[in-house]
C-alpha cells in the first residue's frame, strides 16, 4: 500500500491506511491481557521506547514469537500534517546494527522488543 516509507502523507493512501498496527498473535495477546485496538508502546533491549503508541491488531496471521508492523509510520515531523504521530516507527527501535566485516552489509534484525501498556512519558512526570 505505502511505498518506501515516504507515502504516508499522501491523501489517497492516508485514506486507505492512516496508521500502522502491531500484529500480535491471539495467544500472546491473551497472556498480556491486550485487546484489539489497544494502544501500546514498544521498548527494545537497549531501553529505547517508541516515540508514539501503536494500536494492536490481534490476528492469526502472525506467529507467537514475533510481532509485525508496517514500516514508514510514526513520523516526528509536524509539517507532515496527516501522518505526524500516527503509528510507531520500527527504525527508531533498531539500535543494534551488526556489520558484515567482509562486504559491509548491515544486519538490523538483531533487535528485540517488549510491550509497555502504560504511557512511559506519563510515568516519568509522576515519579
Amino acid at each position, binding site marked *: 500500500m505505502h511505498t518506501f516509507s515516504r507515502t504516508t502523507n499522501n491523501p489517497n493512501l492516508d485514506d486507505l491506511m492512516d496508521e500502522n498496527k502491531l500484529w500480535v498473535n491471539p495467544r500472546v495477546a491473551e497472556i498480556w491481557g491486550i485487546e484489539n485496538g489497544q494502544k501500546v508502546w514498544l521498548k527494545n533491549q537497549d531501553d529505547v521506547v517508541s516515540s508514539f503508541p501503536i494500536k494492536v491488531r490481534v490476528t*492469526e496471521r502472525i506467529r507467537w514469537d514475533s510481532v509485525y508492523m508496517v514500516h514508514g509510520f510514526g513520523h516526528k515531523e509536524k509539517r507532515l500534517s496527516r501522518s505526524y504521530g500516527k503509528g510507531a516507527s520500527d527504525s527508531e527501535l533498531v539500535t543494534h546494527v551488526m556489520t558484515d566485516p567482509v562486504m559491509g552489509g548491515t544486519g538490523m534484525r538483531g533487535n528485540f522488543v517488549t510491550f509497555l501498556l502504560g504511557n512511559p512519558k506519563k510515568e516519568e512526570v509522576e515519579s
Partner: protein
Amino acid sequence: MRYAMAIDTKKCVGCGDCVVACQTENNVPHGYCRDWIVENVSGSYPNVEIELRSERCNHCDNAPCVRCCPTGASHIVEGGIVMVTHNECIGCGACIESCPYDARYSHPEGYVDKCTFCKHRLDKGQNPACVEVCPTKCLHFGDLDDPNSDVSKALKNRRWKVLAPEAGTKPQLYFLT
C-alpha cells in the same frame, strides 16, 4: 454481451491499488470508495487460511437496487452494467439498503454513486481502471458470451464462487478460489 469480472483470491495481495485507481479515475470524493478490499482469516497459526478479495458492485442480473428505485435512475445498460443517472437520482437511499453487497454510497452532492465497470473506458475499448493497474494481474475482465475473453478463460480453468448466492441476485463478480 455480458460484462463480468473474475477476481483471483489466490493472487490478490490486498495492496489497494484498485481502490486508489478507481478514486482517481472516477473523481470519487475523499473518504468514499467504489471498490474495497476484504480480508478473511480462518484457522489458527500455523494453519491459517487467508483470503483477500477486491470487491465492488456485482452488476447483478436480478438487481434489487434497480427494482426498488422509485425514479428509474438506477438502470441496466447494454452488457448488463448497472448504472445510476445522477441527475435523475433523488438520493432516497432505497438502493443502498437493498444491496446485499453494500456496493453503493451516498455522494455528498446528493445522489447515489457506485461502480460502473468504468463504462467510459469500455466505450473506448479499454479495461476498467482497477483491472488496468492491478500489480498481480488478479482481476480478469471481459465478455462472458465471448469464450476467448479473459474472464471466460479464467472461469473455465478454475473453481470459483460468488458472494451471497442466497440473495438470488445473480451476481456477475466471480471469485476464483
